[in-house]
């Protein structure tokens, strides 16, 4: 059984309270079509469990098959530095078919961030090592593709559909 080696903490992108009875961690890639499908599922799951669930998103860009995945992850980190991680996270998934520098600038502007500053951060690789080290940490925890979920530290090996995730979260809440 694979378990999360790097615990969830303040450094993470967190939706909800870290001490919620159920903590769902996703390792995801903004260019991965399965992650996009999971994105809609997570919204339903969050709605269903409310504040009993804390959701954490960690970047796991597969850069060799998804050419925009790394830049998208860094764009989300850039937005996160201004407290807009989740807004950018949602927008990137919603516009997945248009990923690219043009879209990144457009979304930054939409969120009231400076597109020129974003372009410089991407060029300078300001967030590259943060994304990379998150990736390596994921591999050490047994992340083998995207999306990979952990529920209260245990890897979820079933499908990423609503019924399967909701059932596992319910079990975690009861135990």
């Amino acid at each position, binding site marked *: 059984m694979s378990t999360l080696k790097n615990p969830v903490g303040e450094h993470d992108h967190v939706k909800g309270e870290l001490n919620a009875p159920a903590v769902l961690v996703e390792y995801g890639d903004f260019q991965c079509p399965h992650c996009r499908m999971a994105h809609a599922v997570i919204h339903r799951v969050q709605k269903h469990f409310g504040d009993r669930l804390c959701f954490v998103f960690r970047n796991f860009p597969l850069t060799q098959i998804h050419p925009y995945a790394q830049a998208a992850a860094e764009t989300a980190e850039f937005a996160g530095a201004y407290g807009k991680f989740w807004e950018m996270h949602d927008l990137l998934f919603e516009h997945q078919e248009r990923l690219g520098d043009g879209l990144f600038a457009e979304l930054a502007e939409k969120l009231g961030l400076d597109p020129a500053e974003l372009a410089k951060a991407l060029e300078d690789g300001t967030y590259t090592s943060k994304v990379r080290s998150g990736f390596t940490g994921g*591999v050490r925890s047994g992340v*083998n*593709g995207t999306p990979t979920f952990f529920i209260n530290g245990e890897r979820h090996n079933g499908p990423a559909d609503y019924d399967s995730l909701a059932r596992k979260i319910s079990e975690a809440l009861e135990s």
Partner: protein
Amino acid sequence: MAEILPAGSTAPDFQLPVTPDQKLSLGELRGRSVVLAFYPADWSPVCGDQMALYNEILSEFQHHNASLLGISVDGVWCHTAFAKDRNLHFPLLADFEPKGAVSRAYGAYHEEYGISERALFVIDKDGIIRWSYCSPLAVNPGADGILDALEGLEK
């Protein structure tokens, strides 16, 4: 599931095609650690993810002075197309003729399906298997076991 060669065994040497006009032997890599990743087939979804993952962490393997080799019974032209499509930066060996001979030597051949098992071997610089693992065919074994084993070699 096949009985794969366990840790402590000498890794059977082999020479297999790696491109249409090149062969690679295990002996050539003596002095480096080698990660052998047997997998069932190019193009199948799980293998794709598994190889894509290894492709992302090649620098981690290099950091441990280890070479990664993928092996399946697919032919060399199939491997070439697959590697190009997935942008893979490590060699894929064709255990194609006689079919599955190297997979068999490692105990990693699935007789019923006629394909390699999803089996991993970490071989040290002296050619001794130091860690091996056979995953169910449909399960991507990830890379955490390989990285733990490579770290173990340095102790």
